[in-house]
């Protein structure tokens, strides 16, 4: 996986005005937690919708017209073409406005942008997914992708946590995955409630206890920065090499295409060269600003 290899960048209708979003229609809204929502949506124009392709790990710019634009990963899997999904947390101007939208409303969508999870590299490997909170969104695209191509991969372990049971996202997925005997799905919360029957503990600690073997394994990690910072040392302890740890970074990516300037870490632009990086690559970046 080479960060600066831009030949792998997926281009979508790359001629003409790249800043002009496509109109998309919200088809379903799922209230994941009190502050996190998932939209199921589709691009309105038939031709554009049919031509549209993306890979797990890529992101897009979403507009609430008149309010603004913000970047989120595509949280559905490219193996499922019925609609696209995006999950977002209500934290700022655009997400607050997104939270006010209803089924049938239109949003702007442009993308997909950025690189993808290294699908060829993951093939034939054991996979460990480590996610916290809304950090499951990009991983979920990859997890469904893996499930839909299950024969291509070896053992799959999913470790997912949130601060409390009501803050777990994608509960419907978790139920499916826990039923699937080809997956080892461990769900944990930082603090339980009286009716919580599952694990209690921080994600890195639960990862350490689960202790997946590092042999022929790749760990894919996504969550709040604090979780990521504590997860890498645990993986290191378990014998994972930096090349075996993959994450996806979040920055204030305004243009999404490497022009506007603000998402760089050294000479790497997260929107253009990322957002997916191996820990080996991140360690080599000229900055502690990831």
């Amino acid at each position, binding site marked *: 996986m080479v960060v600066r290899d831009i030949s792998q960048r997926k281009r979508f209708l790359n001629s*003409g005005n790249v800043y002009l979003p496509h109109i998309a229609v919200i088809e379903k809204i799922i209230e994941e937690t009190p502050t996190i929502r998932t939209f199921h949506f589709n691009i309105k124009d038939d031709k554009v919708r049919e031509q549209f392709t993306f890979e797990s790990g890529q992101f897009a710019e979403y507009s609430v*017209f008149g309010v603004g634009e913000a970047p989120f990963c595509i949280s559905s899997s490219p193996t499922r073409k019925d609609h696209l999904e995006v999950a977002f947390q209500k934290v700022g101007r655009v997400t607050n406005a997104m939270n006010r939208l209803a089924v049938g409303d239109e949003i702007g969508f442009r993308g997909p942008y950025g690189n993808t999870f290294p699908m060829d590299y993951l093939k034939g490997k054991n996979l460990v997914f480590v996610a916290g909170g809304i950090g499951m969104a990009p991983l979920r695209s990859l997890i469904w992708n893996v499930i839909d191509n299950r024969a291509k991969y070896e053992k799959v372990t999913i470790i997912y946590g949130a601060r409390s049971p009501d803050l777990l996202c994608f509960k419907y997925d978790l139920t499916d995955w826990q039923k699937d005997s080809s997956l080892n799905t461990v769900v944990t919360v930082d603090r339980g409630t009286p009716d919580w029957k599952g694990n209690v503990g921080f994600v890195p600690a639960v990862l350490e206890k689960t202790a997946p073997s590092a042999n022929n394994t790749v760990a894919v990690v996504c969550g709040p920065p604090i979780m990521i910072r504590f997860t890498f040392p645990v993986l290191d302890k378990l014998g994972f090499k930096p090349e075996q740890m993959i994450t996806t970074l979040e920055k204030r990516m305004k243009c999404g295409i*490497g022009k506007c300037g603000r998402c*760089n870490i*050294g000479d790497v632009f997260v929107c253009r060269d990322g957002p997916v990086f191996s820990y080996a690559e991140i360690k080599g970046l000229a900055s502690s600003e990831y």
Partner: protein
Amino acid sequence: MKKIKKSDLNKLLSQWQQKYSVFAPSNHGVVKMTAWDGKDTTFLDWYRNTVVPPKNNFLPGMEKMFDIKKDAGYKLEVTADDTKQLIFGVRPCDARALALIDVNFKDGYEDTYYLNRRKNGLLVGLGCTSPCASCFCTSLNIHPAESQDVDVMFNDIGEELLIAEVTDKGKELLAASSGLSDATAADEAKAKEAKEATFKKVTRKINTGEIKERLMPSFENEEYWKNVAAKCVSCGICTFLCPTCYCFDINDEQSKGEAARFRNWDCCSFAVYTKMPMENPREEKWRRVRQKVNHKYNFFPMIYEQIACTGCGRCIRQCPVNWDITQVLSTLPEKAKA
């Protein structure tokens, strides 16, 4: 080569005004390229360089990207700016700066707004005769009185201006212009002499080779960056007035059912520039100062093999606290081990 009497420049600009929107330096509150008024060429006497760089003509401080109309559903309407601009009096540093912005805006996805204006624009250069004390263009391989980054180049030879075509676009422009006379060998010799004299007037220097060796090793020297950042007030003057700074923000506006998307200049000195709702990777001032210096002299060259600075000196002269990038670049503490 051609030439024209300075007193006839207004006739030439008037001719051009028939076909182009002609911009020239003016000082209505601030020196910048403004729509030429059809007569005034007195700027030839006082003009050193604009305060607001000519990037403003191609990447304006704010521009509408598209209108957002709502009927049964949303409809986005782009009004392309196809104005044929002719900018007269562009300095070699600023012309090179536009060439540098081109590199980023052409790479990968094309920025149609900017590139469309560039395509429709003509740059008519005017060689410097009295560079400012803050200028250091020569250290960045830019000649203050010569340019390959313009379409046509003018040079002051006393009572007259020597005119050289640089690009095909420039050639066409001159071919369609009347009132020009042929320059003599003596004129050209005069221009050569004047250019050499101007070159020598640029006394501020930086050592780009040394800087290249030192920037990366100095990157993690937090103490150093904290020291050089101390007096920076985090305003946007150095970036907004920089002819090569192209970073921008995108903002929507709506009122009374009308909405539109705009873009406007943004600045890495502002703490909000990288702010996300939950965190900010460059909240601290020294990180922002480090980013500014490194983007120009380290990261941009790593990606595009050119330094994103043309030594125009605006950031030094206009800085409220005299934060001088040439001083900073000459005090980088670390050097790569041999």
